[in-house]
């Protein structure tokens, strides 16, 4: 699971109102290089939940992203920043670990890179 996916996942247990973002418990993280696509990142930037991305990256061992979401102007000129964003969003893979609901503490296990978001009968 990469952080671009994590950025859209939340806890859907019945009654939970603050299920996002899921906290990451990283067991095993691997890095896989993919092609750098700055235009894609520029388009994507405004749609990202920045805090969730920064915290998620930190949990996976990558602390290079700025705490505060930078100005859009930075995207045009600062390639170094774009490379960091690229790395965090698309090149870090959580292989083993868990995603934890911030409200209930419920753990959604991640095995072989796949988070299991299935709810138990009493959670639906």
């Amino acid at each position, binding site marked *: *699971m*990469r952080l*671009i*996916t994590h*950025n*859209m*996942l*939340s806890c*859907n247990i019945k009654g939970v109102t603050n299920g*996002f973002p899921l906290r990451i418990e990283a067991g095993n993280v691997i890095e*896989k290089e*993919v092609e750098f*696509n700055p*235009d*894609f990142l520029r388009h*994507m930037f405004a*749609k*990202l*939940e920045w805090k969730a991305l920064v915290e998620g990256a930190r949990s996976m061992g990558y602390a290079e992203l700025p705490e505060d979401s930078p100005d859009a102007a930075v995207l045009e000129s600062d390639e170094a920043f774009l490379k960091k964003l690229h790395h965090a969003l*698309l090149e870090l893979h959580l292989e083993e670990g868990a995603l934890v609901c911030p409200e209930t503490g419920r753990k959604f296990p991640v095995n*072989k*890179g*796949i*988070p*299991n*978001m*299935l*709810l138990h009968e009493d959670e*639906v």
Partner: protein
Amino acid sequence: MKLKQLEGLLGDLEQFSNPKVELEQYPTGPHIASRMLFTAENSYGDITDKVVADFGCGCGTLSAAAALLDAASVIGFDIDPQSLETATLNAEELEVEIDFVQCDITKLELKGQIVNTVVMNPPFGTRKKGADMEFLSAAMKVASDAVYSLHKTSTREHIKRAALRDFNAKSAEVLCELRYDLPKLYKFHKRKEVDIAVDLWRFEPRQN
């Protein structure tokens, strides 16, 4: 990538080893899958450099097609762990990156507007009544730009009405009608092969 090449690569993928009838697990053949994604990209620009989600991805055929057509990011969702294992192997074989999520798509709420396009070959609703509509409803909530989906031609009017009236569709268009070849997969299938008329739909959600 040429259509024939895409079709060839998809034809080499592993499919369901023990298909589960209650989930309506049927492989999406390379012929349909390649044409579906090729059209989505060449006619509408909905795949390359976009974030694509595959609902009910099964063994990942549509996800693989999206990745091969250079989607910026592909995420496959399915309820069945065995299919997801096969899908993972398929992605590795093709050397493409696809994230997979195990979930019940009808109970999953995805946050934000990250997904541009949803592609899917959802259950037709022959085992769990209304499954096709549930998948469509879920897809329309998630996609910012477009949803591509296969539904039985016999449900055409029903789908169009529901999409426009209930699922926030700005437009609902049948791009083409296809014959879906279903090989004899289950014991109760009497004929060796059966041919179902399906519509390839493109839905555009209204902006939120």
